[in-house]
């Protein structure tokens, strides 16, 4: 089943998730060293158009998190689940923290980026594991 309800495949995003699934996540780096996540035509910081795929650091750091109890129908059987934003070098990524006790979550916690599947739809999503 396509992850996109419309059946579309976004080259920038879906290539990124494929790469993460292979353990080869990357970010886009411009000539000035700014980082961003795809899809980008230009660097959002400086407008530079020469963007290079640069390997993501293996270790990320939890920046913020929430335990969601009221979900959309697409995640109704996943509740409660933890959504978080973690920083990996110059970029930040949103994903679900799958194997962590909500009581032990804290900012700065080391995580790594992986993929997982929704218990409700079996669609692929970005996920973090504690490191």
């Amino acid at each position, binding site marked *: 089943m396509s992850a996109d309800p419309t059946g579309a495949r976004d080259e920038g995003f879906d290539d990124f998730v494929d790469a993460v699934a292979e353990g080869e996540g990357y970010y886009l780096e411009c000539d000035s060293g700014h980082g961003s996540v795809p899809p980008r035509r230009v660097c959002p910081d400086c407008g530079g158009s020469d963007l290079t795929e640069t390997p993501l650091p293996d270790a990320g750091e939890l920046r913020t*998190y929430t335990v969601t109890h*009221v*979900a959309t129908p697409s995640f109704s059987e996943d509740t409660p689940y933890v959504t978080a*934003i973690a920083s990996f070098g110059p970029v930040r990524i949103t994903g679900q923290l799958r194997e962590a006790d909500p009581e032990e979550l804290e900012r700065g916690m080391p995580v790594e980026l992986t993929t997982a599947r929704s218990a409700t739809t079996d669609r692929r999503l*970005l996920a973090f594991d504690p490191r």
Partner: protein
Amino acid sequence: MTEVRIAGVGVTEFGNAPERTGRDLFGDASDDAFADAGVSRSDVESLRYGNFMGELAERQGHQGPLMAEAAGVRAPATRYESACASSSAALRSAVRDVRNGEEDVVLVGGAERMTNLGTAGATEALAIAADELWEVRQGVTFPGAYALMAQAYFDEYGGDRDDLAHVAVKNHEHAIGNELAHYQDPISVDDVLEAPPVSEPLGLYDSCPISDGASALVLVSEAYAEANDVDAPVAVTGSGQGGDDMALQDREYLARTPATNSAAKEAYEDAGIGPGDVDFVEVHDCFTIAEVLALESMGFYETGEGIGAARRGETTAEGDLPVNLSGGLKAKGHPVGATGTAQVAEITKLLRGDHVNSDAVADGTVGLAHNAGGTVASCLVHVVEEVVA
């Protein structure tokens, strides 16, 4: 540059009306606005209409001309969509065109149907204001996104759920006696803290309700008001709009809303005022934390200082800067497309003296309306002032 006057306002009751259509709701709001304005429908030169989820809730697109019909107006009509800030985007376009002399009489408003979708359906519909690829697919809901901001705020600047609970308690208190409000009953801090969690740290009473409703404003140029002897003692004197990265993850600071800073700065400059000149504010408190972030970004508090404002009593009806005297989105309700122009309608009544809370701002002449879309990737701020005769 001509001054933009608010000749009339109309707002339906916000609440549960799943059996009513959007056109029925907007028809009511515009009826009230025309009656309040004493302006002929035939003088209206355009309708600017805000709506967010009409395709999902009503299977109805192209709502501009539909709502012109509902309002009994034969004029060009356009729908504006900017998530929860849709009708403020419509208002800004109208303010600009009246000012530059393009039009003299404009009907502005918005409506939303939500309760017919149920909680899960409305949660899904609201989530489309977030980035589908990077956020929604990872399970980010609308409350979830604000919860991420709230947790980041706690970790960065301090404050806790108890501080946020005071925001909810205050706004419920303000809604008592506001017959248009979804909730008109007081709640306690314990009620908020003990409510079921939605997306931690936010619970049910940190969140605005899912509401149906509509609002409308009749705007006229100063010249039209004078020529037609229209009583329009309130003016929109400033308009500002700001933008930000769509997804929260792309922002440098997770507990700040720079789109509000930009919108407020532009609106203040446009009106020739500063935050110190503002007597009271209606802010976009879709969640309790949102009120805190808005007050900081609009210059009323330093970053990290706003979270204690309600607890300290500074933003209550009796405080130095009453915030959300209407009850805010939290208690008045948040039919998203109707919210922006409803805020301006409430401010107009507060200034004119015909609002249940007008006594709280009896000497006030300057109100501010803050309306945000998504996690404040869109923001509009309008300055609304009593005209000195």
